[in-house]
């Protein structure tokens, strides 16, 4: 196989990642299934799965304008929530039965009230307050917040989320994480069988369809990747660092220029699968809270955890033998802008070339972006 692009499974993942509605969701809904949209990986999909509800990670895929959303959010707000909200306003999210937002940033946390005020017909809307610092003291509090969310889901959807169901959901999602880890392992090879752009598609699909089917498909894809011709030489191995990276734009630019993206530190990428949730213990909500607060404190909105993020990010750079790192954050994202500012000097000190920039969620200055990335790759190769 010359490239994974010719694989039917990959085509399916790619189709799911580049649209909001997909046949998996249609089938789910036809069978009477419910779907809950959620905005951030800190919101545990395991709770919804345990309730028999399909979790769908929110994104603005397919959006071309924020005309409708701009009535509710100003231009100073990040493009990711604006485009995503715009898609909801024009009916692209009419398949949702519920929506969970969290306090992950100053803009997203307001979407629940905007959603309701705009009269979008999503019957269940919930706001989750997540922990904003690491450490043991936060775990119990976050667990209690998760309990409140679980209770609300149970009450509204008339389902029972037992500990056993939660344990089963954790196992299922852990299986996804382990399969995705296998996928990332392949990217450590000198000539990876899968590109960065292709990986984005696989990862985004993972939060947009039923997990059982995804895991089955991903196993097939992993088998197929063993047959991919890996003779192709790349001019540089790069990693991407930044916020909700749900499109392939930056990877496409990098890879069209002859380099390859071999890993990432993003919340659609490595951050969601780098570790698994403990399957031990008799309180699965506590396991989930512990995982989010202690094991993966990798969101820069979590105060005091930059050292952990730096170690994690540097570790990825080393493990994947990257020649350079490209940071991107959406304009108006204060936490990621500060994080990338800090990482820049830290990468440079470690002798790893680093570039970062702000971009719009739906970029209008692709040429400029391309020029900067091209110059960066040239610098590395020189």
């Amino acid at each position, binding site marked *: 196989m010359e490239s994974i692009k010719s694989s039917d499974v990959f085509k399916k993942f790619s189709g799911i990642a580049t649209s909001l509605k997909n046949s998996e969701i249609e089938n789910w809904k036809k069978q009477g299934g419910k779907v809950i949209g959620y905005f951030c990986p800190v919101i545990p999909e395991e709770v919804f799965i345990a309730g028999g509800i399909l979790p769908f990670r929110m994104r603005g895929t397919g959006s071309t304008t924020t005309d409708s959303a701009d009535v509710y959010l*100003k231009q100073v707000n990040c493009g990711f*929530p604006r485009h995503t909200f715009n898609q909801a306003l024009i009916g692209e999210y009419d398949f949702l039965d519920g929506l969970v937002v969290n306090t992950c940033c*100053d803009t997203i*946390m307001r979407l629940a009230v905007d959603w309701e005020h705009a009269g979008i017909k999503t019957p269940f809307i919930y706001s989750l*307050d997540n922990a904003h610092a690491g*450490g043991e003291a936060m775990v119990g509090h976050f667990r209690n917040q998760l309990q409140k969310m679980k209770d609300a889901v149970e009450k509204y959807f008339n389902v029972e989320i037992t500990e056993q169901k939660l344990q089963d959901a954790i196992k299922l999602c852990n299986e996804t994480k382990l399969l995705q880890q296998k996928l990332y392992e392949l990217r450590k090879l000198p000539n990876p069988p899968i590109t960065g752009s292709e990986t984005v598609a696989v990862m985004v699909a993972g939060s947009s369809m039923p997990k059982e089917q995804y895991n089955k498909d991903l196993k097939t894809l992993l088998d197929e990747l063993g047959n991919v011709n890996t003779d192709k030489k790349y001019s540089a191995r790069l990693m991407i660092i930044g916020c909700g990276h749900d499109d392939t734009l930056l990877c496409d630019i990098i890879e069209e220029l002859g380099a390859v993206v071999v890993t990432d530190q993003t919340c659609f990428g490595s951050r969601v699968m780098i570790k698994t949730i403990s399957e031990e213990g008799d309180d699965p909500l506590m396991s989930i809270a512990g995982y989010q607060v202690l094991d993966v404190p990798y969101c820069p909105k979590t105060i005091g955890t930059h050292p952990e993020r730096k170690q994690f990010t540097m570790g990825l750079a080393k493990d994947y033998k990257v020649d350079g790192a490209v940071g991107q954050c959406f304009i108006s994202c*204060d936490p990621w802008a500060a994080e990338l500012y*800090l990482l820049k000097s830290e990468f440079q000190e470690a002798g790893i070339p680093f570039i970062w920039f*702000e971009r719009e969620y739906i970029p209008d200055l692709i040429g400029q972006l391309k020029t900067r990335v091209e110059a960066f790759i040239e610098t590395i190769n020189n």
Partner: protein
Amino acid sequence: MDTDNNKNIFDQLNKECNEYSKAIFLESCVEVAKNGEQFGLTTEDCFPEVHCALGLPYYSIAVFGGVMSQMPQAFDLIDKSKEMGVGSMTCSGPKLAMYMVESGMIPKPNMIITGNQPCDAISALGDLVNSYKPWADVPKFYMSAPHDKSEESYVFYGKQMRAAAAFLEDISGRKLDMNKLKQISEEANKQCQLMLELQVLKSAVPTPIDWTWGRSATRIARWGSRVGSPVVTEWLERLVAATEQRVKEKKGIDGITEKIRFMWYDMVPTSSEKLFSRLANELGAVELMDYYNWGGPWTPIDTSSEEAMFTSFAKRYLKDTPMVKHAMGTVQSFTDDITRLYKELKCDAVVLGLNIGHKEQNAMYRVIEDICRERGIPIQMIGCDLWDERYMTGDQIFDKIQMFFEVSGLIK
């Protein structure tokens, strides 16, 4: 009390306030450091009573940024903060504070407390402070303020505050005397009650004093090293008495014929001195309430036990401090406060600064606007940069507000 005597009292109060306020400024911090005294830094001071009880000079880096934005060199420093390369849309005040840290303008502290509150930009400032290499060996403590407003969350945050106090004790080698903390808290309760009384007096028509007095009261009664000091209580008592006298005499702000009463519902912009004077002088529009000029009500600190005190500090910080309450709270609490103050202060209109750095306000501006309209409250969104007048000058803001008053029928 004759007019001259009343004026003398206000002059004296102003003089004393200027002296007491120095304790929150960078100059004081530099002086303390020069003298080799221990001091702490924070991105947002959540429990001034504790620092006062410890006798520990403590400074808010966010306040440094805000104060610096009013200095003659502000534009130059704001430009330098932009050149640093942190977020292009990050709020100018915290960004200026980031530059002050990174450029070495702030002396090295003995301890640092940072948290996520009240907004993303201050949280980002905290990340920079915590990672600033020359301060790598400074002990640090991190706090996670909950957005959730429930008794459980107040207890949770109160416990974090107690742990933060223990951290300060540990690093400073000073023991937190609970009796002293109780005494300071009880005095702070009196001060908050006096601030509320001042707010009630300001509701008189015409309002007896200008907006700067509420700011002065906040600066010394809620910020810095004199919180809970009897000196401040006495200062507030004199301010309340002198204001009450003016109310009895039906005196409005000197030299102003009051025609319009409005709230600036945010922190005030750097152009506020000039802007509010111009609005008062040219339109007779008096500004009655803003985040610096906030009379409460404040939750009384329950001094019955150590735990009760810290839970009260949490409540006072999370549900009474306007920026924290509104930036981290619901649209309901935001608009309910507007409605309450609009009625209590007999306002004609509300102006929302809608600072471009306040993402959380910008993300619910339409909802706020619609709720206020439903409640019959005339409201105008400005969309300025509170810290950088070049984005929207005081004169431009004046024009916007004047036009708003005209279309609202407040200027005949």
